[in-house]
């Protein structure tokens, strides 16, 4: 296991592995996205309270969980990079950030559209909405901080601190609906013992969440490969790997 991790932390190996994994992740994500969308839009029954508007959860919830998951991946990768001085870990964090930022935007926009018919407002300074907006600022801050350094190693160190400190916001977003009186509805599926959502509505959501995760993996592969190439400017392995890709 450690040997595999050690091998994976070598840029040429990671570059090749990401290239091999990408099509598998991408096409399984596409298949699951199709299945989940059909399940969510056609097969799932109408909600007794929110009627057909509830179908927005099949894109809103996977986007939201991905926005939190990607930040956690980014912070863990930055932490690994700081502690064990693994450059590839910093590359993973840098590659994940823009994808996370986009999904945070998707969460906020779809949430706002969902809020309009359900709550009668596009936006409310509610704990869940505000903490998700802070998450977007953390992503943007992380990317801006990286961009402000010419030296990659200094960018890695400075941005890693921001990523690690900012991870405190992840549980705040997740539990904001439990800790505070929020306009946002409570969790439906994280209560593993008794999910408050019926099976026919639940499976498309789980399929969509898995699809979004696989999709993230596929996009991360491309972004990571680009980041590796940017860092390994003059490495001798580049010529051989580029002729294969």
């Amino acid at each position, binding site marked *: 296991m450690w040997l595999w991790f050690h091998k994976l932390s070598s840029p040429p190996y990671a570059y090749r592995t990401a290239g091999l994994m990408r099509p598998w992740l*991408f096409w399984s994500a596409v298949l699951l*996205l199709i299945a989940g*969308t059909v399940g969510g*839009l*056609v097969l799932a029954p*109408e909600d007794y309270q929110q*009627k*057909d*508007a509830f*179908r*927005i959860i099949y*894109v*809103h919830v996977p*986007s939201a969980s991905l926005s939190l998951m990607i930040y956690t991946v980014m912070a863990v990768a930055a932490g690994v990079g700081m502690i064990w001085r693994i450059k590839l870990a910093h590359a993973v964090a840098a590659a994940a950030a*823009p*994808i996370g930022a*986009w*999904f945070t*935007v*998707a969460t906020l*926009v*779809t949430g706002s*559209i*969902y809020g*309009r*018919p359900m709550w009668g407002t596009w936006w409310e300074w509610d704990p869940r909405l505000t903490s998700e907006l802070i998450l977007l600022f953390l992503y943007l801050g992380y990317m801006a901080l990286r961009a402000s350094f010419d030296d990659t190693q200094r960018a890695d160190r400075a941005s890693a601190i921001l990523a690690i400190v900012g991870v405190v916001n992840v549980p705040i977003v997740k539990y904001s609906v439990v800790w505070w009186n929020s306009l946002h509805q409570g969790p439906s599926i994280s209560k593993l013992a008794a999910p408050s959502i019926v099976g026919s509505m639940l499976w498309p959501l789980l399929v969509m969440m898995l699809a979004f995760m696989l*999709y993230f993996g*596929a*996009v991360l592969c*491309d*972004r990571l*490969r*680009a980041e590796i*190439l*940017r860092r390994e*400017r*003059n490495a001798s392995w*580049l*010529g051989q790997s*580029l002729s294969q*890709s």
Partner: protein
Amino acid sequence: MSLKEMLDMGDYGVYVWSCYGLTLAVLVLNVWLAKRSLAEQQRHARRRTQMNSEQS
């Protein structure tokens, strides 16, 4: 479910479909941005290795 019912989504059609459309746009955009960034770096790296091999 008829096509009209699908599009109407019980009068929530505009909200539901705009959310699905925007999410699809984000999904497609991210694939494209990542692919473009990789292609650009590959082009730079190829040029560099070519220049290095010409010099040596």
